């Protein structure tokens, strides 16, 4: 039925020639997206003011240099360990420490004492990394993500070498709402503010329908209008589960946003990030 209608329409268009009405724009989920009232307007003053005074202000004013601690849950398996190592090469100024049964509540004050700015905990389940807790340390927000489709470096089809020590650029795509904005700033605060363009590396956090895709590429400008990218480094996708105001605290934390499945997953065209 649909095919018949399509064919008819195409014939009509060809018959009309130049006078044909313009082609209809296909409906995509992004087009039909339910308008979120918390979408950030680029000129919004309130948002700009908030961002000047929130926890990332010292980073964006270049007062603090990010220093990141990457750790896992208890007893990490080989895949998770390798993933941690690769992640530490991607993010400059990061250190991997094994967690031998230490309580998070106790290592957080130690981290603050040693001047770390961010803490990443990779949670593991059945020998695969499946969760990521990212918390900005000096009393900053904590985001808990579910991590899926993790590809290590050797599983990616490319011929590039390892990422060098240069500071990569950061691309944050499609973080539109207030929530998305704050999450985007969290990601941006992981990397030092001044990228080294000699390194020609770029880390991308692309948000699409509430899934954040992370990729790490090396780019090359073939000409003014063409750029080639080559994927190196691990890749993974994240889905935000909850955002807490203070540092990681599962019982007493003040949750800014939790993903409630019953309420938030009802519509196919409604996204929160």
């Amino acid at each position, binding site marked *: 039925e649909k095919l018949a209608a399509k064919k008819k329409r195409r014939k009509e268009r060809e018959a009309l020639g130049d006078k044909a009405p313009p082609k209809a724009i296909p409906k*995509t*989920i*992004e087009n039909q997206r339910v308008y979120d009232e918390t979408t950030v307007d680029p000129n919004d003053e309130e948002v700009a003011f908030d961002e000047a005074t929130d926890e990332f202000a010292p980073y964006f004013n270049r007062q603090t240099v990010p220093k990141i601690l990457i750790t896992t849950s208890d007893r990490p398996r080989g895949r998770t360990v390798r993933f941690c190592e690769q992640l530490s090469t991607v993010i400059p100024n990061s250190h991997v420490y094994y967690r031998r049964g230490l*309580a998070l509540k106790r290592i957080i004050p130690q981290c603050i004492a040693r001047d770390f700015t961010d803490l990443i905990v990779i949670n593991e389940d059945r020998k695969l990394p499946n969760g990521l807790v990212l918390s900005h340390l000096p009393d900053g927000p904590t985001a808990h993500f579910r991590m*899926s*489709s993790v590809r290590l470096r050797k599983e990616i089809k490319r*011929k590039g070498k390892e990422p060098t020590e240069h500071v990569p*650029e950061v*691309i944050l*795509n499609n973080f539109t709402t207030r929530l998305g904005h704050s999450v985007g700033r969290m990601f941006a605060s992981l990397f030092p503010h001044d990228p080294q*363009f*000699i390194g*020609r590396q*770029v880390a*991308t956090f*692309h948000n*699409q*329908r*509430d*899934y954040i*895709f992370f*990729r790490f*590429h*090396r*780019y*090359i*400008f*073939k*000409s*003014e*209008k063409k*750029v*080639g*990218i*080559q994927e190196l480094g691990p890749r993974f*996708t994240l*889905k935000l589960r909850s955002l807490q105001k203070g540092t990681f605290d599962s019982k007493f934390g003040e949750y800014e946003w939790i993903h409630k*499945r019953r309420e938030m997953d009802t519509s196919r065209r409604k996204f929160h990030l």
Partner: protein
Amino acid sequence: SWQVVWDTLGNRQFCSYKITTKTQNFCRNEYNLTGLCNRSSCPLANSQYATIREEKGRCYLYMKTIERAAFPRRLWERVLLSKNYEKALEEIDENLIYWPRFIRHKCKQRFTKITQYLIRIRKLTLKRQRKLVPLRRKIERREKRREEKALIAAQLDNAIEKELLERLKQDTYGDIYNFPIHAFDKALQQQDAESESESDAEKEEDDDEDMDKREFVEADDSDLSDFEDMDKLETSSEEEPEEEEEVEEKASHSRSKGKTPLKGPARRKRPYIEIEYEKETEPTTKTKAA
């Protein structure tokens, strides 16, 4: 009569509390003292029986006597035991005085075991507990599918390329990349109008290219492949076309560093660009001669 009970239920016929395994018989009855199905530890087949059970962390001693055998509701008498371990043992003794040794002993053993596991529970709750969150299969499948679709819709490579080109246009990279095609077009337009300003602009661009040349040369020390081409270029006569050609060579060097398959299109592109530059330099030589 109790013997009869045992003969029928316990050993021979069906007892609903009895569980048989290869080596042993167990009794599932909640008032059972040991856990096994024996003549001496069956609460149904003994007139005088006692057990220890714990509720919400407190231990109670339950006793059953023959006098109350006719009143099932009042059959089991309950005594709260003290929290103090030794005191509780004394309480058991004083309640079960004149009772068979077997029951007394087994009661005390059971009480010891129960207190030990209660202590362990209390210790473990203080440590970090692993919270098991059940996965819902339907939801997991749904999310996986949605992720795949989002990936396809995202078109990551295109998006990244677009973003990088945007940044190039907005000059965030400064002077590192010299694709001054726009600048050359502007220069051409200016040249049509005025020649002097154009030569100045070209000199400035030459300076820029000198700077870039230095950068590129540093980076390319490791490249052995294109040295022949560089030599060929250096032998060419005129200065300005030589500089520009060299710069384009260096650009192609940098291209070949990142990606080997790019060598083909890079080679192809060179002649086009050379032609452009040659056209441009002719008028400047004219002006200089003049």
